[in-house]
């Protein structure tokens, strides 16, 4: 299935689900009143534009009204923010990045705690992946960068040895849509949650993170050669779907 079609279908389904969820979990009457009040204060600025006290007062009321409105949107947001964030992260690993292609060089970067460890770091490449240049040590950043190239499609574990310990990083080589894990982290729960599909590196490892620079995927729109990151496309399409569904279902947002 093409990434464009997946994004379109997802946008419509999620647009519908989120609007329905918003409708059920929000105080629809209060949201309607809050929005109406905002509109009223905006209109007041226009109707009484020669009355400076009205203009300034209404502007203040717009700011306060916006705060009230966002507060009302907070409760439904609580219901949706965690599942949808996790879902977007999960989808981003497939739709946001392109897997490594055969015979196309890519970089793998390991970040260590101690710059001296860089002197003893080594890489063990599985069959199907080769180094296309000597590693580059960047002592100032505690990093070593390998330039690699894959000769065959597949899922590989690249081993990195340092200070007597070996850690691995998966590398996916394929032309198909695939779940990718661009980073592997030792700590940084937040980074692991958003950027990694692998388990954490061992706590006693000298390696803090390993990053494979999967290229970003832009989805061709099929119109005059335009491309777009999936998340923006999803944002636009789900908003359009949401707008249509909210009108159809009479849900105030």
């Amino acid at each position: 299935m093409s990434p464009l079609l997946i994004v379109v279908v997802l946008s419509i389904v999620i647009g519908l689900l989120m609007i329905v969820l918003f409708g059920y979990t929000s105080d629809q009457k209060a949201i309607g009143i809050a929005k109406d009040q905002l509109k009223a204060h905006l209109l007041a600025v226009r109707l009484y534009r020669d009355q400076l006290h009205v203009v300034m007062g209404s502007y203040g009321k717009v700011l306060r009204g916006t705060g009230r409105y966002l507060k009302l949107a907070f409760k439904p947001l609580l219901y949706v923010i965690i599942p949808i964030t996790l879902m977007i992260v999960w989808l981003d690993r497939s739709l946001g990045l392109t897997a490594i292609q055969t015979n196309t060089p890519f970089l793998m970067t390991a970040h260590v705690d101690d710059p001296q460890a860089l002197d003893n770091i080594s890489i063990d490449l599985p069959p199907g992946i080769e180094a296309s240049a000597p590693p580059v040590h960047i002592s100032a950043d505690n990093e070593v960068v390998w330039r690699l190239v894959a000769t065959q499609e597949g899922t590989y574990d690249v081993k990195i040895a340092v200070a007597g310990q070996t850690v691995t990083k998966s590398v996916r080589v394929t032309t198909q849509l695939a779940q990718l894990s661009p980073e592997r982290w030792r700590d940084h729960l937040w980074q692991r949650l958003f950027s990694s599909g692998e388990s954490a590196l061992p706590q006693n490892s000298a390696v803090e993170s390993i990053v494979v620079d999967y290229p970003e995927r832009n989805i061709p729109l099929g119109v005059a050669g335009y491309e777009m990151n999936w998340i923006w496309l999803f944002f636009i399409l789900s908003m359009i779907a949401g707008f249509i569904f909210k009108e159809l279902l009479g849900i105030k947002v």
Partner: protein
Amino acid sequence: MYKSSNSVGSKGIRTASLLLLLAVVLAPSTAHAYAGPGAGFAVLSSFWAIFVAFLYSFYALATWPVRQLFRFFRRRNAYGKAVFDRAVILGFDGMDPDLAERFMNEGRLPNLAKLRDRGTFNKLRTTFPAISPVAWSTFMTGVNPGKHNIYDFLACDRNHYLPFLSSAEIKGPKRQIKIGKYSIPFGKTEIKAMRKGTPFWHWLGKAGIFSSVIRVPVTFPPEKFQGVLLSGMCVPDLKGSQGTFCLCTTRAQGDKFREGGVRAPIDRKNGVYHAYVPGPDNPLAETAGHEMRVDYEIRPNVAEKTAKLKVGSEEFTLKVGEYSEWTPIEFKAGLGFNAHGICRFYLKEVSPEVEVYVTPVNIDPGHPDLPISHPVTYSIYLAKLYGAYATLGLAEDTWALNEHVLDDDAFLAQAYGNHEDREKMLFDALDKTRQGLCTCVFDTTDRIQHMFWRYLEEDHPAAREVPKSERKEVIQDLYQRMDKLIGRVMEKIDDDTLLMVISDHGFKSFARCMNLNAWLHQNGYLALKEGKTESGDWFEDVDWSKTRAYTMGLNGLYLNLKGREKQGTVDPSEAETLKAEIKEKLTGLKDPDSGAVGITGVFITGNVYRGPYSENAPDILVGYGAGYRASWDSVMGKVTEKIFEDNLKAWSGDHCIDPRLVPGVLFSSHKFTEEKPAIVDVAPTMLKLFGLPLPSHFDGKPWSLAPVAGKTPAPAPAT
């Protein structure tokens, strides 16, 4: 202590939650922060609102000095000579000076008494006739009816002997395109104002003085001027009528309502009751009479005396004797043509029968299909600020009470509901208009006195069966309520504001009806077709070839004049003699049953009106005596056998009588020296107080303020 710390704690949590939300939503570091279209709309809407408000405010602020400079020169003519920064005029339609004085003397109206003691209290001479659209038109234009063209609610089509609305003419688009079964109107609906003359707030606006004008009668269609205006009396409902209620009922269909309402059957299917709200005719239908309808469901709960109503996407539960909120109604004509209205539902009964009263479908102020304000956004602004409100000119459903569809309490709940909305609008206008004119007319005083005068009198025919113990002091409560309103207004104003409380006319009892058409018939001025002793409505069975005079409406009497009426019989050269003859016979006419004088004054309009529209006036105005008024049948052009009869309807007080008997009131916060003020003087007085010259066509004379120590009275106006 505990409560306090807990409150602080929960406030802290709320603040932290809000900050967290703002951090997540307003400052997304990655696109991951997007949490679906609901949140997306919330964020976008908020930013949009702030952005637009900022743009508006920035524009207003940036251009303010230029506009102020521009106005500075213009305002030197207005505020430079103005005696007050602001004038606030509260119109209490129909407030009666005698009742006001009585209640003040009883100590029931402390705020009005304050105005009387410190400023002015006087009777305010009204117009001929003393009818609201006439009097308020004179109030705003400062001229007699011959110059503003309003003589009654209804005017007479002399070609067809039929009435038409005197204040506005609404015509659909002239061209139509036929597509299949549809006939699509092409072009705009034309709304023509029939009231002529220029309201005084237009003169103020030209001088750079801002006005807020709320619900002054005969301001539909709204006209452009510098200020905001919400139209009042004479705004139609969505059907184009002056208010058509609907009684939805499972009862076998009864008699047709005389006027103002229709019955709609409720059908029962599978335990659910189905009814409909009748709407306007479908504008796409090839022929007239295809009424659009909105269906709704009723699910009664007999044990709890409630019913759940489902109207479109709105669902609500009502107790018996309870009104719904204003509910949006959308009539679908097809091809995307919709008419937007609002109405309220009142649950009358759930057992043994099911009955729901539906108010006339008002034009939706938040989505007006016809302009009801200037600018158009003003009605929308008020609807957004306070929620939907009644827009119909005669918003209090007097006919439903007359027809016993509503009882006293239901009518009062409706009337005071509208009144509360009006109060909110007034206080908003007071807050927004700190300089200039702020005027608001309240109809509650008129409607409630019309409908509850019967309880003021010992032996009113409409209340003979109601024991004294069950009679409520509705009118006294009404005056006290208005007094409290004045008290709240007085708290909002300072010495640089002039407060005036005026009414367009007073009130008297309406205990006896007089059918003037019957009198004309019995005195040989009006003829019926051979063998008929009565006519139908609108002169059905009248023999025009033998008729010399007829009446329709509340006070007007017309000659059947050759060359003017389609089947005129009276030669213009004989007209004055005939008018004098009728006047002589009618003046002092006695009611044979009581011996009281039924008609105290008859006025030939040629002597009363001056102006370019005098020819549209009735030929004679009939001034009924106190306790009398034109009968319901006579108003509708019907000839009956009896001339005098009791008025048994709840509509038991009236003012469409001899105007000398029903002056209005004038209260003001500052003392005027005028001894016999008239409503026609208000417009010139306002212009004078704002230091503007008076147009030469004004009929009213400006009042003068009594000198106050240390203050200079207003200079004499230029004309």
